[in-house]
């Protein structure tokens, strides 16, 4: 059976070239990167080389990068570190309603510590409301965190506009670029942001390595206190193999992005067009144009996402869903809710995030299998002929 992995916003397959670069740092040069003898020096050099590669990728200076254990730590670090460092100036933070949990949850934690958080709403395409954001700005606004691209619906946010607005009150802008890197151009000078997070395993690097860019001159308080690693801004022995992998993955993105981008966008355009033609009551979620290349997200009416996901997996197609039942927390996708989708429609949400490894045959296979699976599940559904008895049901009480 053909296997088509389309869950690339969850994680990606490590590039072989990345793995090759990582090997020597597991056993050959396993020393601590702080150790002064040759093996330690080699590890240190490898870490610094990786830092240069990540810097080149986003157009930053190496000293502006702090390695972390991944995107979640980088986002927590940005939110808490930038909030604490600017506490004297104010206590107001603005984040969008469609941020990743690694932004919204630290924001809520900061709320409990006395910070005030404003959530910026989005339109039905998932694009933030800039007018709302402008009106929310005040003297005490110290930090704004808006993602560059949404992993769930692919929508790209107008970060340059956010930066312009933020400068009126001198607020620092952080942007979560975890979903964006490897799929679109990301340059710090063009975006104008003060802080930016990324994670290696979303662009064919290893899990356990990410980075936070903090613009020179912007103050940040450490999240993890420890030794003098990362200039004292992030303690803990460096995960040298993973950092080396991050560096190589960044180099590959820098060298291949134009090809990968057009490849991804050709494939996802074909996938979206074909599925829309073949499946009725299928809705593309997110912005139709301003979206990540290779990103196809839908709502399939009358069926439930976990069932769809598992039946597709049975045919070798791996995707994800924002339905209540798919989530371990039994919560329907907050992103789709913020975009105004009612909960019964969110149950049928499905995400196909492509990677550089996918090809035309993969798309043909999905286009032939997906409509069959949808029909099969609709046969089982009481709503095959359409939603009915909808007035009978109230809000959803927790199970």
């Amino acid at each position, binding site marked *: 059976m053909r296997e088509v992995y389309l869950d690339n916003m969850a994680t990606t397959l490590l590039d072989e070239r990345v793995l090759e670069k990582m090997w020597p740092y597991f056993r050959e040069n396993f020393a601590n990167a702080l150790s002064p003898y040759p093996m330690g020096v080699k590890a240190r050099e490898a870490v610094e080389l990786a830092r240069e590669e990540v810097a080149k990728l986003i157009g930053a200076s190496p000293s502006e990068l702090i390695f972390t254990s991944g995107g979640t730590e980088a986002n927590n670090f940005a939110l808490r570190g930038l909030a604490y460092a600017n506490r004297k100036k104010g206590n107001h933070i603005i984040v969008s309603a469609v941020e990743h949990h690694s932004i919204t949850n630290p924001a809520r934690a900061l709320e409990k510590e006395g910070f005030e958080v404003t959530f910026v709403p989005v339109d039905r395409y998932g694009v933030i409301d800039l007018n709302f954001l402008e009106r929310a700005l005040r003297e005490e606004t110290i930090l704004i965190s808006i993602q560059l691209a949404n992993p769930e619906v692919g929508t790209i946010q107008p970060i340059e506009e956010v930066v312009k607005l933020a400068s009126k009150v001198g607020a620092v802008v952080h942007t979560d670029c975890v979903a964006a890197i490897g799929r679109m151009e990301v340059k710090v000078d063009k975006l104008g942001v003060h802080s930016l997070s990324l994670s290696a395993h979303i662009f064919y690097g290893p899990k356990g390595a990410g980075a936070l860019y903090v613009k020179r001159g912007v103050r940040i308080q450490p999240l993890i206190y420890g030794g003098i690693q990362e200039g004292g801004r992030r303690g803990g022995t460096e995960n040298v193999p993973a950092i080396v992998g991050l560096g190589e993955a960044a180099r590959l993105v820098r060298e291949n992005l134009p090809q990968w981008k057009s490849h991804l966008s050709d494939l996802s355009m074909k996938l979206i067009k074909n599925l829309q033609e073949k499946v009725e009551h299928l809705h593309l979620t997110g912005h139709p144009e301003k979206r990540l290349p290779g990103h196809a997200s839908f709502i399939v009416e*009358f*069926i*439930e996402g*976990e*069932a769809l996901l*598992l*039946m597709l997996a*049975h045919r070798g197609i791996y995707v994800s869903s924002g*339905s*209540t*039942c*798919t989530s*371990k927390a*039994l919560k*329907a996708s907050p992103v789709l809710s913020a975009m105004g989708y*009612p*909960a*019964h429609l969110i*149950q049928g949400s499905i995400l196909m995030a492509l990677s550089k490894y996918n090809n035309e045959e993969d798309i043909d296979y999905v286009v032939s299998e997906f409509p069959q699976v949808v029909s099969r599940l609709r*046969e*089982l*559904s*009481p*709503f*095959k002929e359409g*939603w009915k*008895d*909808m007035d*009978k*049901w*109230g*809000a*959803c*009480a927790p*199970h």
Partner: protein
Amino acid sequence: MYSQKVMEHFMNPKNVGEIPDADGIGIEGNPVCGDMMYLFIKVKDDRIEDIKFKTFGCAAAIAVSSILTEMVKGKSLQEALSLTKEDILREIGGLPSQKVHCSVLGIEALRKAIDDFKAKKGAK
């Protein structure tokens, strides 16, 4: 995550469909929450002669619907009413903790279908 039995019933569910002249219909769940079951029963001499289901929901909800119909088909109404969620869980090889409510969904839909049958019969 799911037992083999759950996956079998999910991939090849039994007794799918509607009974146009059903003697009782039980509707349980809420599509807003993600699962919704319609059960149709045909009753003869106080026995469930036929039973069919239509379910909107995850693999667990579909598998529970299928196994439930198999468990009560041919049973007396009293036997059907004594069925518990534990019986279903045992038969299906268990469910992940966050999916146990799907077995309750089945029990409730069955009770409602039988109640509906009794109400209709009483009205006659």
